[in-house]
């Protein structure tokens, strides 16, 4: 008898209950706020964005700078290094999104989100938005520190902005890789370990710290196709002058390719888990 009264909504079109764009943005906002509050509650989680750029720039400039450019000429190396570090830190920060996603699934809070009338993707998007914010903070600190140590930009501020934008775009594409890892591996520790295995060769086997010309042939071949080399070169040329077209296009191509391959995998993995 009750079936008659209760079956009414079944006839309603399937679109009913869809989440509108504005509601979706509001949900992403609320979830991004959550991620910001998590940072506030655990300020050490900002170490990678705040302290690491400072450590890297000081360490590499003064440890390698002398031998790379000659004692007393560390500034020259600084000009070479900073665009490279900019390329690198996007990757370091993107890593955090993987451990964050993994952690969410281990806790009950994801169950709560999944029983709520929100688009499931909004949880991921909010994370990506906050991570991009963290990348910008890290970049600002890196550049601020660089300028304090004597970094000089020989192009225009617009070029500098383009370099920043390019690193962020590339970093965002990497987030999908780490989200995929975060969804595939069992613990946040495993995610971090796996990420390091991917990161180390890419970071050091690149033009970030040293020009590739003096590397052995096989390594030079690897660095040539290493997207981090492309990004580092692109940022370098955008900030210090030089041919930008090739490296910028290569970087964008890498970003698109990485996103096209890993984003659908990550989203489908996420759907399956949710």
């Amino acid at each position, binding site marked *: 008898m009750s079936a008659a009264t209760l079956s009414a909504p079944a006839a309603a079109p399937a679109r009913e209950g869809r989440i509108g764009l504005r509601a979706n943005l509001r949900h992403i906002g609320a979830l991004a706020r959550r991620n910001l509050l998590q940072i506030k509650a655990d300020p050490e989680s900002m170490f990678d964005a705040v302290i690491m750029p400072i450590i890297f720039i000081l360490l590499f400039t003064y440890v390698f700078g002398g031998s790379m450019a000659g004692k007393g000429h560390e500034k020259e190396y600084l000009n070479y290094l900073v665009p490279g570090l900019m390329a690198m830190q996007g990757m370091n920060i993107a890593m955090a999104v993987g451990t964050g996603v993994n952690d969410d699934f281990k806790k009950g809070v994801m169950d709560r989100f999944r029983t709520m*009338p929100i688009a499931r993707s909004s949880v991921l998007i909010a994370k990506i938005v906050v991570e991009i914010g963290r990348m910008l903070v890290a970049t600002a600190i890196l550049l601020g520190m660089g300028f304090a140590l004597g970094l000089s930009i020989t192009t225009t501020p617009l070029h500098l902005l383009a370099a920043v934008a390019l690193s962020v775009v590339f970093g965002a594409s990497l987030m999908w890789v780490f989200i995929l890892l975060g969804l595939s591996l069992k613990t946040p520790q495993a995610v971090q370990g796996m990420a390091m295995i991917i990161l180390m060769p890419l970071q050091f086997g690149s033009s970030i710290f040293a020009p590739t010309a003096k590397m052995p042939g096989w390594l030079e071949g690897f660095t040539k196709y290493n997207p981090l080399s492309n990004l580092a070169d692109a940022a370098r040329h955008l900030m210090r002058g030089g041919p930008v077209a090739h490296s910028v296009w290569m970087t964008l191509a890498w970003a698109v390719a990485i996103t096209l391959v890993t984003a659908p995998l990550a989203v489908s993995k996420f759907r399956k888990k949710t």
Partner: protein
Amino acid sequence: MGAGTVVGMTRNDTTRGAGSGGNAVEVRGLVKHFGATKALDGVDLDVREGTVLGVLGPNGAGKTTLVRCLSTLLRPDAGTARVAGYDVVAQPRQLRRVIGLTGQYASVDEKLSGFENLYMIGRLLDLSRKDARRRGEEMLERFSLTEAAKRPAGQYSGGMRRRLDLAASMIGRPAVLYLDEPTTGLDPRTRNEVWEEVQRMVAEGSTVLLTTQYMEEAEQLASELTVIDRGQVIAGGRVDELKAKVGGRTLQIRPADRGELHRMVGEVARAQLDGIAGATADEAEGVVNVPIISDEQLTAVVALLGSRGFAISGISTHLPSLDEVFLAVTGQKASSSAPEQDAADTDALQEVAA
């Protein structure tokens, strides 16, 4: 009431079977496999609107799987389930607007404060900033968490976290609330607080599906019971019907002087009080056990012993344990009730089983 009205919540009253009598939850032949194990093996059940259905069963009976299917966290392999008229498979989005879920494990963000957790959930439920704030504060107050509002949920005690979880589930005034073993692992005081809250929600018109391992909890909260085991419904009906099947409570009286145990049993037997038979002495425990089915009988027994001049040092009553319920409805012991949990549980109702 009016001030608390949630704007923008599509608790589509027109689509919910108006008035009482309808079923808020209808489950027919629900099946869910995990590999070779059938967690749910054709479950049928109904929850009438505005009532509490207790789903009673041992660990591994399929209770949590049932709740997860009904809250769109799991997709059933066969059968149908409708909640507030919405099909769990075909209309998950609509369904999520009318349900709330509190599980065994608190699903709140441990890094966020109690207030921030509730505020976030309010915003995710499309409340305005102002309404989300007000509703969050209202719920904190209601669950006696106002003082802890600004502390991270990770620092809360187990009971506080469970209360916060309940508050979070109720922010959107869900038409149907699932409580999956809401008091498992809680101390008796906190358990009572949770019970009071659930009773209050029902009084305000919510429909509740409650899973539990405890007969006592089922009796406190539920009007009807479904007993499940190995993914199947093995008994169901009103709580008093089931109790009649299982038998009533056991009254335990502890004399101040153990030597008087047998004299007390003798007095109770001799008095031939209405409906009372089978008083026994438990020498190990130092108590007299009297099976009773009503409060009047309790009063009569205690009054009798008082009038005969016995010094009594303790009185308690115990409900039948889950094991005894199973024994009564199936003639066999619960399939997989975890012995270590029963042993660790000092809950009064376990004493009788021991």
